[in-house]
């Protein structure tokens, strides 16, 4: 077991997005950490809040937020999980945060401690979780407590030192360079102040004339138990590996959620772009690492007033592509009101589907056709849920009931099955367009009037009679034609001159030219005529 400790001294400050203003994190009215801008103005850790305010009028004082730190540590642990299966998010007696990982078993995979540490180093400096990267120190030892102590000693582990060892190593032997290095010597040489215990005990040690940890450890156990309390003795045992040091292993979460805090506040849609891209990259990395696709994502925007706006994006087809998710998020973002600045952006995704690897052979022709589901998601998010629909045939004899609108939604994933029962015969002449609610037609002088134009019955009747057990319907369907107005007027002008003569023009010969054809029916129960469809 070889433990690597990554000590993160500036974590309370790194929780927040970097700011151009002077920022100091305070705990118990004392400055715990401050950024570079504040340091230039003379602020340093240990000052009281009032002193720092006196030194700088523009400084932003923020209370330490342990919850956010805890969350960030967890996110980091999730990233570090790729290097080792045993990861611990560790918090010591003095509330200092660090991440510990067992690297002894991962060394062969990563080709030695050198490359592993390099990878960890670049991961921490160029991290999507923080723009400026994480300030960190490494500590390597055989026990958890020793690794943590060495990391805090800030001497930690340097890459240059590792390289010299690497050169001397005999590759045939499967011993790793750092194993040869005597880490225990470093622990023995570490100052007493670095011990992770009560200050009282450290003072006691110093009073006894001990300056180095090695000097304390040289004492016999009986002498130690006489002078110090049991907790400290336990700590020393764990430091030396004499007793077991059980830890709660980190287990990666089954869902994704990340958030970004902004000290200055995001005031416009343009300001939001950067953090959103950042969060989406994190999500896509997460999906890529786990070979997953997500089916929905949720954005929550919190204002300074703690008002929340939630944008839910449901994907009809699981996605893992950054571009697609970004485009959809941007469309949704347009709907977000920007009346007050946003403090916190939160992205979560809980439902995942395993990515199927698709086999494509070289000779298959690749058609450059896009995915319909993505297009549908875009249209739905921009124009509203009701803007995209398809038709579903239902088992009914009434046309308006058999032809129902099905809005685009998740059911598209399962692919709606059309009813196999085909009520309509192919030989039946049916219109291409349907009025879902039939329109009553006027009747005058034994003529049907549609929009004050006479309709001519052409074909029919065809009776549709159904639902006698509930709402009895009985209809006689006809196909009617509408004559071209101008032609029609020319031919009927002679007849219209004699209004007394009641001649009705119905026969085709007099019509000349049709303008359009309609599907009309006579409701035998209501005794009225209705228009229901138009032919193409």
């Amino acid at each position, binding site marked *: 077991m070889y433990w690597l400790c990554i000590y993160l001294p500036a974590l309370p400050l790194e929780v927040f997005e970097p700011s151009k203003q002077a920022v100091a994190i305070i705990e118990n009215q004392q400055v715990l950490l401050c950024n570079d801008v504040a340091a230039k103005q003379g602020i340093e850790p240990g000052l009281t809040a009032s002193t720092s305010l006196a030194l700088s009028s523009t400084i932003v004082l923020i209370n330490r937020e342990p919850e956010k730190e805890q969350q960030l540590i967890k996110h980091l642990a999730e990233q570090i999980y790729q290097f080792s299966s045993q990861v611990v998010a560790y918090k010591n007696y003095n509330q200092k945060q660090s991440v510990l990982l067992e690297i002894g078993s991962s060394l062969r995979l990563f080709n030695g401690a050198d490359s592993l540490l390099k990878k960890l180093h670049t991961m921490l400096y160029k991290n999507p979780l923080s723009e400026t990267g994480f300030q960190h120190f490494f500590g390597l030892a055989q026990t958890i407590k020793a690794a943590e102590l060495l990391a805090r000693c800030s001497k930690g582990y340097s890459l240059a030192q590792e390289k010299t060892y690497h050169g001397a190593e005999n590759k045939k032997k499967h011993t790793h360079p750092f194993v040869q290095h005597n880490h225990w010597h470093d622990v023995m040489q570490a100052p007493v102040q670095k011990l992770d215990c009560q200050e009282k005990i450290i003072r006691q040690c110093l009073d006894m004339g001990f300056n180095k940890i090695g000097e304390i450890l040289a004492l016999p156990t009986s002498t130690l138990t006489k002078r110090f309390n049991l907790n400290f003795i336990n700590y020393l045992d764990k430091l030396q590996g004499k007793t077991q040091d059980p830890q709660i292993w980190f287990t990666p979460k089954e869902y994704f959620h990340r958030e970004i805090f902004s000290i200055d506040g995001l005031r416009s849609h343009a300001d939001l772009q950067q953090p959103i891209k950042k969060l989406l990259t994190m999500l896509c990395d997460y999906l890529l690492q786990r070979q997953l696709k997500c089916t929905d994502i949720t954005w929550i925007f919190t204002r300074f007033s703690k008002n929340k706006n939630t944008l839910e994006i449901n994907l009809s087809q699981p996605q893992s592509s950054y571009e697609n998710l970004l485009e959809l998020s941007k469309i949704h973002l347009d709907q977000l009101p920007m009346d007050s600045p946003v403090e916190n952006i939160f992205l979560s995704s809980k439902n995942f589907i395993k990515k199927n690897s698709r086999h494509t052979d070289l000779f298959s022709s690749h058609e450059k056709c*896009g995915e319909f589901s993505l297009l549908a998601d875009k249209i739905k998010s921009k124009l509203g849920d009701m803007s995209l629909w398809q038709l579903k045939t239902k088992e009914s004899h009434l046309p308006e009931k058999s032809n129902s609108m099905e809005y685009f939604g998740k059911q598209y994933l399962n692919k709606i099955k059309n009813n196999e029962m085909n009520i309509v015969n192919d030989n039946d002449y049916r219109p291409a367009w349907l009025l879902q*609610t039939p329109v009553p037609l006027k009747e005058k002088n034994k003529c049907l009037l549609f929009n004050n134009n006479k309709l001519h019955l052409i074909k029919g009747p065809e009776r549709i009679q159904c639902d006698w057990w509930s709402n009895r319907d009985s209809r006689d369907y006809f196909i009617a034609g509408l004559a071209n107005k101008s032609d029609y007027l020319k031919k009927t002008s002679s007849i219209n001159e004699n209004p007394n003569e009641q001649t009705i023009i119905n026969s085709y010969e007099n019509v000349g030219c049709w303008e359009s054809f309609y599907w009309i029916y006579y409701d035998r129960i209501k005794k009225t005529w209705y228009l229901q469809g138009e032919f193409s």
Partner: protein
Amino acid sequence: MTKNTSIKKRQELSLANQKQNVEALLQHPYLWRASQAPPTSEQQANSNSVIKSGFSQVDKLLCNNGWPLGNLIECLAPLSSSHHFKYGSVQHNSLSQNNNIMQGALHLFLPAIRQLASKKRPIILVAPPYVPYLPGWHINTDSTQASPLWVVSPDTTTHLLWACEQILRSNSASTVLIWLNPLKKQQHGESQKKNHYHLRSVHLRKLQLAARRSQSLVVALRDINNQQKSSPAPLRICLEPTAYKQKTRLQVHFLKQPGSWGGQKTTIAWHNRLQTAAIAANQWPVYNPTQDLLNNYRQEKNDNLAQSTTSTAKWS
């Protein structure tokens, strides 16, 4: 003399240069010269990006013998007389609340749409005037698959154009039918000027650019009044029903064509099955109070007899 010759030489040189430039320009694939012969059969064979229209007389007149894919086809048709008929407050009847372009236009493109539908890519209708009725479209679909017909109903013209661009850009549809009419829906908080959003040729040009990216059949249906207005669509058709040998046929007038001259005219059959003699007036089943009693009596009798087998009953 020497001066004159040198000037002449210079002029010749500059002319030669200009000629070269012009010839280089003429090589551009998008340039078609009126003096050029229509494309030969070999060229036609090479062009995969056409789809047979389903009407032989139309195919003959079209460049490359079919509707061009990935190009905007502008189809102008008269408004149907139902356009000023108000369909009441029910939203679903008249979807887009716009004027109805005569549906004969759809008749012309249906055979091509049916061919393309078999490629398992959806057919997208943008702002159609009514709800489509699937049995009338005769699109062959597997029972396992959902219907390939999708409808986008935008509420404003800006949204309509946006949706069209997205559809064409994604290239996921086999056919895109666009009813290009200014939508008149009032939007709260918008000024009156914005409501009268007119389609300009710029919008059509943008649509054409978007259509070029796709491989679908893109048809924009517009009112016949726009015939005189300029349009960047490469293929423009005007449709009108005309009387022809005692029957009504659809006249297809090619106003503009890519790769050849426009101005061709032909007619196609239109609902020939319907154009038989209409029913005489005295046989109309119009509601008649005296007859009604009789009918009721008969109906009750019939219903009692055939109640168990109630379904579609037909007679001609």
